[in-house]
């Protein structure tokens, strides 16, 4: 079964997210910080009249927050059945949409020991290189 993935970079690694889950991808612009929110909540943006909460995916995976650059992108996720919140993921830069066989995913290498490990679903050795797949559900679940 071939699946389309939107790929993006975070700290020079390539990650993939199923394109079905993506509503749109936008350039990162001014994000209004939310005081006292969890660290990985970067803030809010106004997306055509809707308030979208932005999660800093890098921070969520355990790295320190970074400046927003002209390369930074926000991946707006589709809303789920359980929640009407619109969420965006802040990533370092966006890469291609690739088509890969989901079944070929292997478990994440044991040497990946950073704290974000628990959010990794597996790795696909794709044509363009290694693509790390994320456990999006866990990432979005506050706990």
């Amino acid at each position, binding site marked *: 079964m071939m699946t389309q993935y939107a790929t993006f970079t975070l700290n020079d690694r390539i990650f993939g997210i199923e394109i079905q889950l993506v509503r749109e991808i936008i350039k990162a612009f*001014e994000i*209004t*910080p*939310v*005081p*006292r*929110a*969890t660290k990985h*909540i970067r803030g*809010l*943006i*106004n997306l055509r*009249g*809707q*308030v*979208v*909460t932005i*999660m800093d995916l890098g921070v969520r995976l355990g790295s320190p927050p970074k400046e927003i650059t002209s390369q930074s992108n926000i991946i707006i996720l589709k809303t789920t059945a359980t*929640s009407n*919140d*619109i*969420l965006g993921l802040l990533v370092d830069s966006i890469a291609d949409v690739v088509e890969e066989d989901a079944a070929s995913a292997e478990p994440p290498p044991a040497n990946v020991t950073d704290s974000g490990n628990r959010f990794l679903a597996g790795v696909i050795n794709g044509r363009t290189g290694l693509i790390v797949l994320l456990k999006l559900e866990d990432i979005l679940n*506050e706990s």
Partner: protein
Amino acid sequence: MSSLVDESIISDFVAESREHLNTIEPDLLAMEQSGSKAGQEVLNRVFRAIHSIKGGAGFLAFERLKHLSHTMENVLMLIRDGKLEADPGVMDALLASLDRLRAMLDDIHDSDQVPCEKEMEQLRVVLEERGHAVGGKVSVQTRPEDPLSRCFDMDEEALKSAVTRGMHLYHATAYLHRDIKDKGMSPLGFLNNAMGVGNCLDAFIDIAAVAELDHCLEQDLAVALLFATVLERDLAVIALKLPEEQVVPLDMGAMKEKLGLVKAAPAVVPAPEAPPPPPPQPVEEIPPQESGKNAPKESTGQETLRVRVDLLTGLMNQVGELVLGRNQLLRALSGHTRDIPGLSAILQNINQVTSELQERIMQTRMQPIGTVFNRFPRIIRDMSRALGKQIEIQIMGAGVELDKSIVELLTDPLTHIIRNSADHAIEDPEERLKKGKPPAGQIVLHAYHQGGQVNIAISDDGRGIDPKRVLQKAIAKGLVTESKAQDLTDREIVNLIFAPGFSTAETVSEISGRGVGMDVVRTNTEKLGGRVEVESELGMGTTVLLRLPLTLAIIPSMIVGVSRQRFAIPQVNIVEFVWIRSAEVMTRIERIHGAQVLRLRDKLLPLIRLADALDIPRTFEDPDTQESRPDRRASIADRRSPTREERSERRLDGRNDYSVVVLRLGPHQFGVIVDELFDIEEIVVKPLSSFISDCKCFSGATILGDGRAIMILDPGGIASLANLHFSDIQEEEKRRKEMERQEAALRASRTRSIILFKVSEEERFAVPQEHVKRLERIHPGAIERVGDREYWKYLGEPLPLLRLDRLMEVSPIPQGRNELYLIIPKASAEGGAQAGIIISDILDALDVDVDLRPVDIQGPGLLGSAMVHDRLTIFLDPLQLVAASGDAS
């Protein structure tokens, strides 16, 4: 059966029937109140409504619904015919049945499962007690020889009533599509029309007719009606809008015979055109119920559309966005109006249209408060019956409109308040008479606009709330300390009933009954962005006042800035703005128990730095530690626009000017220090994302006119995050007031009334007035000398005189004065020697508040010195002086 009928017809029927029930409930209450005097119109309206429900139910084959409404109709008919009094017992039965009908309508397809035996029994008892058997069912065969003949079932009473009133009976057949829908009527519309000219005694879906006629191909349903009217057949045909062959007259002679009414023949004679004979009762004016406005007749006159609420909510949100978009557009183009001809006119037009659109769409969601108010007459009626009290309810301003969501959420708090009034505030009739009040208690519900808000006042003329008892309770519950209680006004005390944890069931009757869950009332009202207050006069009554915003979705808010971030504070939470100049900071802000406090008029307000509460790095320095300078520098460097930097620099120079927003939190107030105050903007509230909702300090998010998404602050959250302890501050406030009182008392005791005088130009002297008996003007020649002693004749006696320069080191009175003065001190308690003190001039008599300091000179009677009128003044005790001069002699 009902599956044969369009679902849309059923839902129309349900909606219409509900409307009917809602309109007749107040009518029924009016009937009860004014008894047989209730206007004929009211009675007819109720009758018609129940009747058309019955008709529709028969039509759509909802057997139980039909059965119950039918029995209700019988009761109503007896009332109409003057055979039955509309007494409370009858009304109980009718109202209970009304509720049951509602329950059936709520679940129309299973309405046959809804139990209604109890209500039926009640109605039956009513009918039987009055000697009108219900059992009397008659079957009426239309024309035995005709294949179209149908067998109608109906109550003998109903039939008799119709016949004795000189009505003709017809068997009418109406086809659902051909005769009703195709003519643009609804089935109920058809029935209503029929009801206008006569009486529909029975109705059912005529399956036989469908089978027999060609219309079965069209799947057209036939409805059989047994129709009673005063109209002759040709007129009835026209009135029913049916083809002639479908209206078949019944043999009236046979009918009368069957009913044993032949002897009553004279009553049957009246001319067919004549209207039904008017009832014997005089028709009086309908009681002042709002119901008149909602009469079914009118509802057909107004063109309305049913629109789904979510559609309106969606429109509302979109128009909110449109407003924001307009604001952005206006801002973006404001600089270009000169470059582009005609632009400003276009912008103005867009501006205006958008505003109007917003207003209109808001209006679509507005509902009259009457939709809530109208349920209260019934509640009050039931309660007064149950409690054995007489309570009248008066409704004013039922037409005032509020957002639908607010109207809905108001139901519970209002019900609560009204029930409390009826249950506890209004006294028994005997008690009221003893107090010289009319036996019937009054509850007044009044809605009105004030200052862009809607106020709802619920007043009663009952017992009122006893502040003493409320206070006792509040102290017992630990809601206020006893010391604090002394400072409370009666009004503040009475409002303690809204404090959480104030009321429990057993306190209720003690304190005249307000209080069960009044904190819930307050919480609910505040949730709506409103406020609640109570005012009460013991023995005279109580008024609860709810202040509500018109709408929830768009709220005016103050935009504030902290460290380059902006936040919205809903205006409803804001009490005032205070600007503290740097020069005043030291005197107006202080620390109590480690917390900063602002002295505002006579109050102490806890003070929070918004930056601290939100955990944002501060951008200006702490006046105590002056540590956060580096932070500040960093952030100033961050600022982009030079104007802002300039302004910040100025603030740096001004050191610590503060903008304080004073917020209201229930009964408390506190100040929030912000960096900047912007404008008040109308904002559209967006719900908080679940990722943020645990921050607690925000109540929502919004998008500003410039497109920026910002958070809306929640005062309660901020206060709890900042660990505000209002009780500490209040204790301190109390302590201070006490101190001030003491100081004032002390000052009062220190204040002296003195007489200021001089002996020479050099020194100034003062003596306490209280020690002075008399002041005399004397001529130097009147002084008599004996040796070096001097006397003056006073009251026929020689009064020894003394000169200050002989007792202490002060200058003597200059020579050559034409007149001198004498201070004659009061005699000391021991009745010692009397003497007069010679001085040169009396300067003043005044009150001074001075601290006396020791004087350097030596002598008796020296109290000390102080500055009076900017001159060093020596204070003397005249009694001691006199005593000293006596010793010296």
